[in-house]
């Protein structure tokens, strides 16, 4: 006698969004580095910041007559921490893309996943959604938590140093910083979409060495440079790897320092979000088209892989 009784004809269909959510969740179970690496870096940043605060406490008497320099010195670590966190999440996401489809084939668990009522598109899109969708709120939250922790730790420190608890509060425009970080994460993720998708495609194509295959454009750029045969690949790569900020933000230099000492510590350039510029750029949409094409190829490859 079966435990279920006779098979029922029409089971309740599982919601596609629910399936996507479970598939994303299972990616985080498998690839714990997605959240562990940023968490470790966040802790290191916090420890480094506390140490820097201590060092600053020693130097503060010298800077006490230079409010502009102090302000810059107070804000700079927050920008640096946000950038470091974004770089960490980007690298972690890239490593994830390189590994995720290939690892299913290496350990033969692909047979288990293929035994489930999920299409290849469901599986690959869920994997693509990790760096392109799920990591955005996670990364934003991690950055904000890190910055908030730095803020609290810094405020406590400055309170003890005699500058008062409001020193950091006045120096750091919290709302600006939070919105800047969130917007930066969002645009950077979309900007890097073709890179993530490119590595996903190679992860679907080969069991091992996806990073090497995916890194071929870098090799091409180096070859181009060595042989002096133009700079097409180099400039393409440079734009895609480093160009997100150019399209997503309008930057302006801070007002000229009035005193010589202030020039010793320049505040970071001021960034203003430029969503219209970003979303109307050909480069952004071209990148998304390539990302879609690479993901489509990854789905095709995964579907055709029958020789396990």
């Amino acid at each position: 006698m079966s435990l279920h009784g006779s098979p029922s004809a029409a089971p309740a269909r599982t919601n596609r969004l629910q399936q996507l959510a479970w598939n994303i969740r299972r990616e985080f179970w498998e690839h714990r580095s997605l959240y562990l690496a940023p968490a470790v870096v966040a802790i290191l940043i916090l420890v480094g910041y506390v140490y820097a605060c201590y060092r600053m406490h020693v130097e503060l008497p010298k800077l006490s007559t230079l409010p502009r320099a102090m302000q810059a010195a107070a804000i700079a670590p927050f920008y640096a921490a946000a950038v470091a966190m974004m770089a960490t999440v980007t690298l972690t996401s890239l490593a994830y893309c390189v590994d995720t489809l290939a690892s299913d084939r290496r350990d033969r668990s692909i047979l288990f996943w293929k035994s489930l009522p999920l299409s290849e598109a469901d599986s690959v899109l869920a994997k693509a959604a990790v760096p392109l969708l799920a990591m955005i709120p996670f990364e934003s939250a991690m950055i904000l938590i890190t910055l908030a922790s730095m803020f609290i730790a810094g405020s406590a420190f400055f309170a003890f140093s005699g500058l008062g608890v409001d020193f950091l509060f006045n120096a750091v425009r919290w709302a600006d910083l939070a919105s800047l970080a969130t917007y930066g994460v969002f645009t950077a993720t979309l900007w890097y979409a073709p890179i993530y998708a490119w590595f996903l495609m190679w992860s679907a194509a080969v069991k091992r060495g996806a990073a090497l295959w995916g890194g071929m454009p870098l090799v091409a750029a180096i070859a181009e440079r060595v042989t002096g045969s133009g700079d097409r690949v180099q400039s393409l790569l440079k734009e895609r790897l480093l160009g997100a900020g150019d399209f997503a933000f309008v930057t302006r230099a801070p007002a000229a320092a009035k005193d010589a000492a202030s020039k010793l510590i320049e505040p970071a350039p001021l960034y203003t979000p430029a969503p219209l510029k970003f979303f109307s750029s050909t480069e952004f949409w071209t990148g998304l088209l390539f990302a879609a094409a690479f993901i489509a190829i990854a789905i095709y490859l995964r579907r055709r892989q029958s020789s396990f």
Partner: protein
Amino acid sequence: MSAPFYLPRKTLKTNGDPSTMRCIEAHGLSKTFGKTVALNHIDLQVETGRIVGLIGPNGAGKTSLLNAILGLAPYEGELNVLGFNPWQQRARLMEDVCFVADVAILPRWLRVNHSLDYMAGIHPRFNRTVAEGFLAKTTIQRRSKVGDLSKGMIAQLHLALAMAIDAKLLVLDEPTLGLDLLYRKQFYESLLNDFYDKDRTIIVATHHIDEIQHILTDAIFIDGGRLVFNQSMEDIEAQFSELMVSNDLLDDARALNPLHTRHTFGRHLLLYRGADPNVLATLGDVRTPSLSDLFMAFVNNQPSAQTGDKQ
């Protein structure tokens, strides 16, 4: 008596009764890898409620056939599984099909409780209570990772996940590979007791022929991409006889046109199809051949043409 598992194509008809509905129907099913022919124009019908053993040597085409049935690989020819085209409609098909390959395919990083959560989340026919009940009979810890479990435990976990799916077709590809005899017996006992009923169909591909013989309703031998043997167990019992004969009566036994002859422990074993058991009994000991005896005869000798195989 239930409908024969395999009949010539022109006699195959369904009457709407679930007990005789076709679960799998293939015509001219072919698959090639470059110049290698994995499946060679296979015609196959499997009725609902059967337990079919798919048996063949390595490279015979078992996995290729299962891959086609499960929609894991493209193929040529016609194939219908539970009313679906497996290659085109795999995701939908897999709502009604449960597939267990060898125990090594469960991801090693997966925790037992996560596997239950995940299955409950994505599979519309998964019954978590059934899986929990099955696991409660084992010593598997919910927080354990698959990689920390023994092979036997992994098999139990995989079976628990499979049994909890209210599937119409269960496909097993070497499900007990690497397990000891005890776990293998437990596996098949659970399969029969907890999963099987007349509305469900099971296909088992394995090398452990003798271990599964008692649970099968049908046996298929595949070799060189062709089905070289297709019989229900009832037909095997009715049609095939094995005669053990001494040297002095060997010529008389051979005169009755055996399908296959082999020599063992000083006696000769001759396999017959359609021979009168009473006549054979005058020459020696007669018994129904085991599947492994038939396998040796049909696969080693490539006798599909001379045996009157129904294909």
